[in-house]
């Protein structure tokens, strides 16, 4: 039966009580940002190879089973493969005649194309991996507080930081809710004779289309309820709020941050 939650882990939080879970959210967000910058700076396979052990260490320390992450990334990987296929087939920038492996009209496979697609794949996978790890190891509350504290100073420039962070976090956290909702809908419709668990990929994808309207309707209803709930509790931006829990970064947090930056610098420079 359709168990979408297995195949999409984006936006989920899995508590394992590991060192990474206990780290200060601000440090985790900083580390993630450094990785994101790195994913754009590093442009050869060697650089990514140097990063690999660090990513493995993060995965192991977080105690989140790698199988779970991989299974939960199936749809992402399939999508990425599709994009990469296009990247390879339509690659045509300064390719010397000798490096074409195959050619047919506009479509071609060249060593340059494969190389650029390979680098692109590693970039996207790195981006996806670090942001997924951030969400898997950081609770909604910590993520919100961390972002608010990091971008807090921008409030002096009259940028509504708290509101923006809130919108961002709600958007992310709605993903798992939508997925659960889709699962429920798919189950109910299967019971009525739309077999979501049978047929090929295209038939299945078409059936998913049927869920869009009910998903949108329930999405709007949910957003409406959330607004009412926030209004009845007199929510106004966090500028006026005080925090029950103060965040504090421990020396080991700082150490982790420095280590990651150093490692990434090495990967960039090699």
């Amino acid at each position, binding site marked *: 039966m359709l168990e979408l939650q297995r195949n999409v882990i984006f936006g989920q939080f899995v508590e394992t009580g590991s060192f990474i879970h206990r780290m200060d959210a601000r440090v985790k967000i900083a580390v993630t940002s450094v990785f994101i910058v790195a994913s754009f700076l590093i442009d050869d396979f060697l650089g990514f190879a140097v990063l690999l052990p660090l990513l493995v260490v993060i995965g192991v320390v977080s105690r989140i089973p790698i199988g779970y992450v991989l299974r939960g990334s199936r749809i992402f990987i399939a999508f990425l493969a599709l994009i990469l296929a296009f990247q390879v087939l339509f690659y045509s920038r300064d390719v010397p005649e000798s490096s074409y492996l195959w050619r047919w009209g506009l479509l071609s496979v060249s060593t340059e194309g494969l190389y650029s697609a390979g680098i692109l794949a590693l970039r996207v996978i790195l981006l996806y991996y670090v942001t997924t790890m951030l969400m898997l190891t950081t609770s909604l509350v910590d993520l919100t507080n961390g972002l608010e504290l990091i971008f807090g100073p921008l409030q002096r420039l009259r940028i509504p930081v708290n509101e923006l962070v809130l919108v961002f976090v709600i958007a992310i956290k709605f993903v798992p809710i939508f997925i659960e909702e889709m699962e429920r809908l798919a189950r109910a419709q299967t019971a009525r*004779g739309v077999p979501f*668990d049978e047929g090929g990929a295209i038939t299945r994808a078409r059936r998913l289309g049927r869920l869009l309207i009910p998903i949108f309707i329930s999405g709007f209803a949910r957003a409406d309820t959330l607004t009412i709930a926030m209004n009845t509790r007199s929510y106004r931006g966090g500028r006026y709020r005080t925090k029950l829990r103060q965040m504090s970064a421990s020396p080991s947090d700082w150490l982790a941050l420095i280590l990651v930056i150093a490692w990434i610098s090495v990967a960039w420079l090699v």
Partner: protein
Amino acid sequence: MRPDGTPPILELKGFDYTYLEGTPRASEAVRDISFRIDSGERVGIVGATQSGKSTVVDSFAHLLRLTPGQVFYKGEDVAATGYDKGRLRREIGIVFQQPDSQIIEDVVGADVAFGPTAAGLSAGETRGRVEESLNTLGLPYADFRLRYIHALSGGQRRRVAIAGVLAMHTPVLVLDEPMAGLDPRGRKELLELLIKLQKDRELTLIVCSASLNDASLLCDRFIVLDRGTVVMDGPVREILRQADRLAELDITLPEPVVGAREMQRLFPDFPTDLLTEDELESELLTRLGTA
């Protein structure tokens, strides 16, 4: 097995189920559930939230990743390879707790027609089924056929959902919390309708609820679940006799039973297996007469 040798229409044998099994978010829903339901029975599956009712219901129509050897329909293992799940789902009609989730089309008539059309009925037969189902549920065909479902009230949407399932003429009808969100009049009407339907079509009727209020009038037998296991299984009156235990399990008792439990303060041996207010009244009058 009944005396005549026919297998039960539905049977669970040591049914275990864990959602997202093998992931860090795994959660066990039910453990070692076994019961059999014979054709034509009226069974209530009752329990508080998180007791596993919905998981049991979903298993009937094979809407989960079932392990072979646990769920049987008419004696056949529904999880066996090659089992025709489509046929199973055409024979087990489920009305889910949220009616919106099982509505497929935008317009009432089209939605009710969905099942019969998918089952391969001719346009004429389908039209007949739609008309009959809508009329049965008090949604006159001529008036409601072309209405937009999302513009209907909650109670009407639920009735459309039920009509969609009734139009399939399934031998088994399963309702998950059918009375939730209905006003007293709506509840009374639906109750009477279900009793009549069950009798006319000789349905196997299964009702899931956290409240025994309407279920006690609709069912002959209760299967009581608590945290994923069966804790009681028997005729309605026999179960109601253990009213204190039911209250402990966070199950809403029928009003006459609530009254009877109050009466136990005056008469410690006052029975709790009462289905109607009339029964409560006559029991009370007897007591008062003798006191």
